[in-house]
């Protein structure tokens, strides 16, 4: 075997070993997922409203949905429980008995849609249509005096609503 041939054989062997090494670096048992499949999984709506679906609703429309599906736990006007109060409390946070609600504490309007869609109503999450989630979000903003009853909430308008406690948080990370 000539020196050249030996050298090229060695190079080839090294390449094979290297390739084998990379191929077996991990189990690699995950399946690649197409973007269109991910859309069905992805329900996250961050504060900027990216991920908000088509559809819309107003407080006037949301009142009926709220009475039928939310009031039983959260009270007729978002107060009186037995579940967490959703209305009132603005100006109470620095006092002995702070009342944390959508109006007094919740910092972003778009994430209201996110939470209602993923987890509410408690006994039937993911049962509301997108229009209904927009409408209930609008109704809660209206009850807290943040928007008017006729203002239509959709993917464009909801993230633009400025919440009273928007600047009420101090990040401890990093």
């Amino acid at each position, binding site marked *: 075997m000539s020196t050249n041939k030996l050298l090229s054989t060695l190079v080839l062997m090294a390449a094979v070993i290297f390739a084998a090494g990379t191929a077996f670096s991990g189990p690699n048992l995950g399946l690649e997922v197409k973007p269109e499949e991910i859309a069905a999984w992805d329900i*996250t709506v961050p504060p900027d409203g990216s991920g908000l679906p088509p559809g819309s609703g107003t407080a006037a429309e949301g009142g009926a949905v709220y009475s039928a599906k939310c009031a039983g*736990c959260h009270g007729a006007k978002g107060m009186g429980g037995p579940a967490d109060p959703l209305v009132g409390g603005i100006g109470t946070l620095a006092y002995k008995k*702070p009342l944390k609600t959508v109006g007094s504490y919740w910092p972003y309007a778009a994430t209201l849609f996110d939470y209602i869609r993923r987890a509410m109503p408690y006994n039937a*999450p993911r049962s509301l249509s997108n229009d209904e989630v927009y409408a209930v979000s609008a109704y809660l903003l209206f009850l807290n005096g943040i928007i008017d009853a006729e203002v239509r909430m959709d993917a464009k308008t909801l993230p633009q609503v400025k919440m009273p406690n928007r600047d009420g948080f101090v990040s*401890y990370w*990093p």
Partner: protein
Amino acid sequence: MTSGWKDQKKVTAEPPAPAADPSLLDRRAFLTGAVKVAGLAAAGGLSGNLLATAQAAESTSPELPPWMKIPGQPFRGYGQPAKYEEEVKRIIVQPYNGIAPGAGESMTPLHKLQGTITPNGLHYERHHSGVPDIDPARHELLIHGLVRRPLKFSVEALLRYPTVSRIYFLECSGNSFFNAAPEPPQKSCGAIHGLISCCEWTGIPLALLLDEAGLDPKGRWIVAEAGDAAAMNRSIPMEKALDDAMIALYQNGERIRPEQGYPMRLLLPGWEGNMSIKWLRRLTVTEGPVYSREETAKYTDLMPDGKARQFTFPMGVKSVITHPAAGMTMKGKGFYEISGLAWSGSGRITRVEVSADGGKSWAKAALQAPVLPLALTRFRLPWNWDGGPVLLQSRAIDEKGNVQPNRERWASQYSAGNTYHYNAIQTWSISPEGEIRNVYQ
């Protein structure tokens, strides 16, 4: 002094503890020669007594117990505790009662357990929408967002991955919140502090799966989402995800329990339990946090000025005496072993001190080896109760120099309405009658 990890770093070591109350015995009392000599002397007397007892036994020939005269029960596929220990149960709290029975918590009965490992059936629970009945054959984990190739994994595939085993505590960020109330609640030790447990978790380092998906350098956070009816989600800094985060598949050797996230949970050692997402179904790599409900409306710590601390991830340095503690009564004066648990979300426990006089003097407790970082540490100290009124306390110090604060110092950093990250010193008041009460000092 604070429970917040950030402020804790600024804390300097406290002055050395003054001479302790003489009722607190040296932590090495039962290992030293002096006690052995005393023990031998006592043993001399004891052997005579034992002989007399044996002779008495022979003359009265007590009846053999039935379990020595008939064969016992045959085998069981899955063992259960002794029926005489039936009252050792989690303490269930359902704040919404019937309207949301699966929202709330069950607490570990700390005062009925010993050692540091929590049995799986007694691990605390905190659910926002009950315990889902997930068929592992239909569950998948999706990793997507700022990655080179989005991947989904079946449970079967993940069970083939290389694993590590680690002993870690998990503590709910709301643990001990009952003690944030203006008046001390008269509940058992477990019913006050039992939102903490410690297990050996076996799982896949999260970094390994992220590496397979290929991280985009722009990805600085990961949003973890649950596959239950609350679809709970939290944003996690990439630093933690690549450090010691784990996809846990096993708990104390067996597959993870449904109430702990079956078929898999995220585990973020030392950080708020709420972030260790159970029933994990999705990890999204993002540039920033998504400000989910659980990191804005909940799990944020209201301060006196009305603003709230957010992303206060590590749990503060903390300890509690579990024996003796509320939930039990003293059995007369004399010898007791004071014993309890200490932990810190910032690393190892280096020292635990015990006071029998409400914090005037302190004695160093013995720490049970191995003392592991981000795990429960058992401390012990022999004690000779003279039958008088006593205020028992423990105070933990971790390897970063963080010192567990007293209640006043803890409360000073928060609004009166804050219920998260409570890590103040617990005081048990023992009356001459042997009653143990929760008091504030």
